[in-house]
């Protein structure tokens, strides 16, 4: 039996692309508008953006539609598009405390400075299918709009949505590690231009985590808190809202507001170790998570992993640290686009490499037979030799 490398197939590939379109449209339903996708599937759009590492809600809606809802494919489309864009300029550092919050909670204290704002959340919703959604109509939209207008009327004011940071409060009371006295003001590591090398700077770690696959981060973080690690995070603060973004004016350097990002920011504190070696006073460690869109699970997972990896670096973990404490393992295997690309490439023809595998298998069989000894081994060796002779004759013919 022989294998050869395949050639051609262009027509089949083109037909396959037509069939993909057919399968997307064969339900005989009206085409999805990008507005519907952007506003009614906002978590899918947000996920495409944070995993694609490009903030572009309309393009993300297009990607989600083109990918038929496949989150990794949608983020792949966005990241590929990003690679074609020129880098105009870097923004000035954005401060989470300047966020116009639509939601802001803390699991550390009930009465945090500024108070808690539950905002849009399904956290306290019973997970039952709402059959009424199947019959949703314009009246339903109007009813919800009226209710929200009522909320807005009772919570109006210039300061609504602006809150101090819980971590500032914790720092003021010496509860968490302070900001390093000598902040490294070098340019942040750019993971789109330089390959990750380990140990990597925290800027590289945070970039890699921010564009990682949500499921991967969730898995690693979950393993660490469930028992394969030493993480016991407390959610100091989770905020979701609109974050203003500014750049330096290219001529006079003054900050210029250019827009805002819909974003989620999370800070966790880990447990303190009173017996940790060193002369520093015991403090909570801090973990930081950030995503565009409302990606709360990802932001929390990222904060947990950031905290774990920071503690590993400082020797602050006790007991078994688990797989989530291996920075190289976590960062190199959490990018959904890279991981799915590597896995999906096995669908492509491997005829030549498999032919080599078959030859190795045949040699291994002959070797095993030759080493078996006795009458049976000699008989097997003779049989393989006869097979080889037959194959050679056939091939020659």
């Amino acid at each position: 039996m022989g294998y050869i490398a395949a050639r051609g197939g262009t027509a089949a590939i083109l037909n396959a692309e037509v069939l993909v379109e057919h399968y997307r449209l064969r339900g005989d339903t009206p085409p999805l508008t990008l507005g519907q996708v952007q506003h009614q599937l906002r978590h899918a759009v947000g996920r495409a953006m944070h995993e694609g590492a490009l903030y572009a809600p309309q393009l993300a809606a297009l990607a989600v539609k083109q990918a038929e809802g496949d989150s990794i494919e949608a983020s792949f489309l966005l990241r590929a598009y990003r690679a074609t864009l020129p880098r105009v300029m870097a923004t000035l550092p954005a401060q989470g405390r300047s966020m116009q919050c639509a939601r802001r909670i803390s699991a550390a204290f009930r009465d945090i400075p500024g108070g808690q704002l539950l905002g849009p959340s399904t956290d306290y919703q019973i997970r039952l299918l709402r059959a009424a959604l199947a019959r949703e109509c314009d009246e339903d939209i109007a009813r919800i709009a009226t209710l929200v207008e009522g909320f807005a009327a009772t919570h109006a004011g210039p300061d609504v949505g602006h809150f101090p940071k819980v971590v500032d409060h914790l720092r003021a009371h010496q509860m968490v590690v302070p900001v390093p006295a000598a902040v490294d003001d070098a340019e942040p590591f750019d993971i789109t231009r330089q390959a990750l090398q380990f140990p990597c700077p925290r800027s590289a770690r945070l970039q890699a985590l921010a564009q990682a696959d949500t499921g991967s981060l969730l898995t690693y973080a979950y393993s660490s808190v469930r028992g394969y690690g030493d993480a016991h995070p407390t959610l100091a603060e989770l905020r979701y809202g609109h974050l203003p973004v500014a750049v330096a004016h290219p001529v006079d350097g003054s900050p210029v507001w250019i827009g805002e990002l819909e974003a989620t920011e999370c800070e966790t504190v880990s447990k303190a170790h009173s017996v940790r070696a060193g002369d520093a006073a015991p403090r909570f460690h801090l973990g930081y998570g950030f995503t565009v869109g409302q990606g709360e699970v990802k932001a929390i997972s990222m904060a947990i992993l950031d905290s774990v990896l920071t503690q590993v670096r400082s020797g602050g973990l006790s007991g078994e640290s688990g797989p989530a404490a291996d920075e190289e393992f976590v960062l190199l295997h959490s990018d959904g686009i890279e991981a799915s690309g590597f896995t999906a490439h096995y669908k492509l023809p491997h005829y030549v490499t498999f032919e080599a595998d078959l030859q190795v298998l045949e040699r291994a069989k002959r070797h095993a037979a030759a080493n078996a000894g006795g009458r049976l081994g000699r008989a097997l060796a003779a049989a393989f030799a006869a097979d080889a002779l037959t194959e050679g004759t056939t091939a020659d013919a």
Partner: protein
Amino acid sequence: MVPMSTPLETACRATFRTLLACFARPGTLGRLVAPPLAAPGPGWWTGIAFALLDQTQGVALAHAGRWRSADDPLVRWLTLRCHARHVSAPQAQLALLADPACAPLLDELPQGSLTYPEAGATAVVLVGTLACPAADATVWQLRGPGIAAHCDLALDAAAGAWLAPIQRSRAHYPRGIDVVLVDQDGRCAGLPRTTRITERGL
């Protein structure tokens, strides 16, 4: 409506595509798309700058045998709009050289290293014409990857000054400089460092 691209971005994409084709087939003449803006420098040249430059790139410009300074009006115009950094020649990723008097300046551009040959600069060189019918034209015979056997490139006589510096820049391949020739009519030709060039008369 999804904001996919502005007219300038469309022109940049077409320019990039043309340059890509010219580098893949050295000696083949491409036609550049005029950028939809009023530029103080040569238009085709500026289009290439907009297609290749962004914040991550360092650029150097030369005119009349000298590198332009950071406060030169053309440098300020270009770096402000392309968001590129003006750098000295040894740090330039892209160099724009305007006339044959600048030919010796090619020696100052980075050629990369054996470890990082991609760090070699790309030089955009403005010549009189790339389709010279005149009897006194300079004809370069090109060989190398992307060329079936060999092909000829007929340039104006003054452009002959570029040959020696280009040849010197690729003497230590894979180190070297990739060159784009652009003429006054928007024709362009790619001379990647893999292309071997010899001169012959018509």
